């Protein structure tokens, strides 16, 4: 895994998650990968070791668990291999 990517059901959740997580973790805002569809265009990238902590922080903030999903992302040959780590599959 190169990084974990948190994708959201809507843009407002993405923006508030970025603020919540940015206070405690190192985060990067990035466009949702083309390989991951059916979520809003803004995603939050965190370090591979931080995704469980990130999920915990989001739940503690009151965000509902069905508002986000977390993927592992590994880059290979210019493409991305993505695998669902947490959240309901689409």
């Amino acid at each position: 895994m190169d990084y974990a990517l948190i994708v959201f059901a809507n843009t407002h959740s993405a923006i508030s998650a970025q603020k919540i997580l940015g206070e405690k973790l190192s985060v990067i805002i990035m466009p949702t990968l083309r390989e991951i569809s059916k979520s809003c265009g803004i995603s939050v990238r965190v370090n591979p070791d931080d995704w469980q902590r990130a999920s915990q922080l989001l739940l503690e903030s009151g965000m509902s668990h069905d508002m986000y999903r977390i993927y592992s992302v590994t880059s290979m040959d210019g493409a991305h291999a993505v695998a669902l780590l947490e959240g309901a599959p689409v």
Partner: protein
Amino acid sequence: MAVVLDAKGKACPMPVLMAKKEIDGGNREFVIEVDNSTAVKNLEKLALSQGCATATQEKDGVFAVAFSASGEPVPAAETEAEPAVPIKGHWALFVGHDCIGDGERELGTNLIRMFFYTLSQGDDLPKAILFMNSGVKLTALDEQVVEHLKVLESRGCEIYVCGTCLNFYGIADQLKVGNVSNMYDISKQMLDAAKVITL
């Protein structure tokens, strides 16, 4: 006395067609009169492709282009002009805002972060990135954008940050990436680029 063709007032490509007809008819020594410099350029291009030389004289807004035989025809492919705006190649990015577009500021801030993320991951990089007005805040105050700009700089992009603007916003001592620059350098980068994308 050479043949004089009157192509004054005729729109492109008529003057070229008239000259071509004359050449095709076996005459390579003639004068064609036109009234605009674009027609002159196109006639010169035709002459080159047909192995003719030209001499142009202007009087009272009328250009007399004299054709004469000389040398070998140059294949058309070698005389075709470059497209005015190359799709790929040397381009510049102008950033005059610290967010993308008008509307909700928070959204615009995240859009510009995502833009620089995407740019830094891609292969088609600008030669120069130019920051002015509130755009300069990105190079000093936005940690994420600064990181992406460092990657872009390490990959060969030149980053020009308007010193007047840094000064105006009182953040000159907080600049984290790029070189402090001025209007001369920034405008030169814009003029030198095949295209400028403005955010």
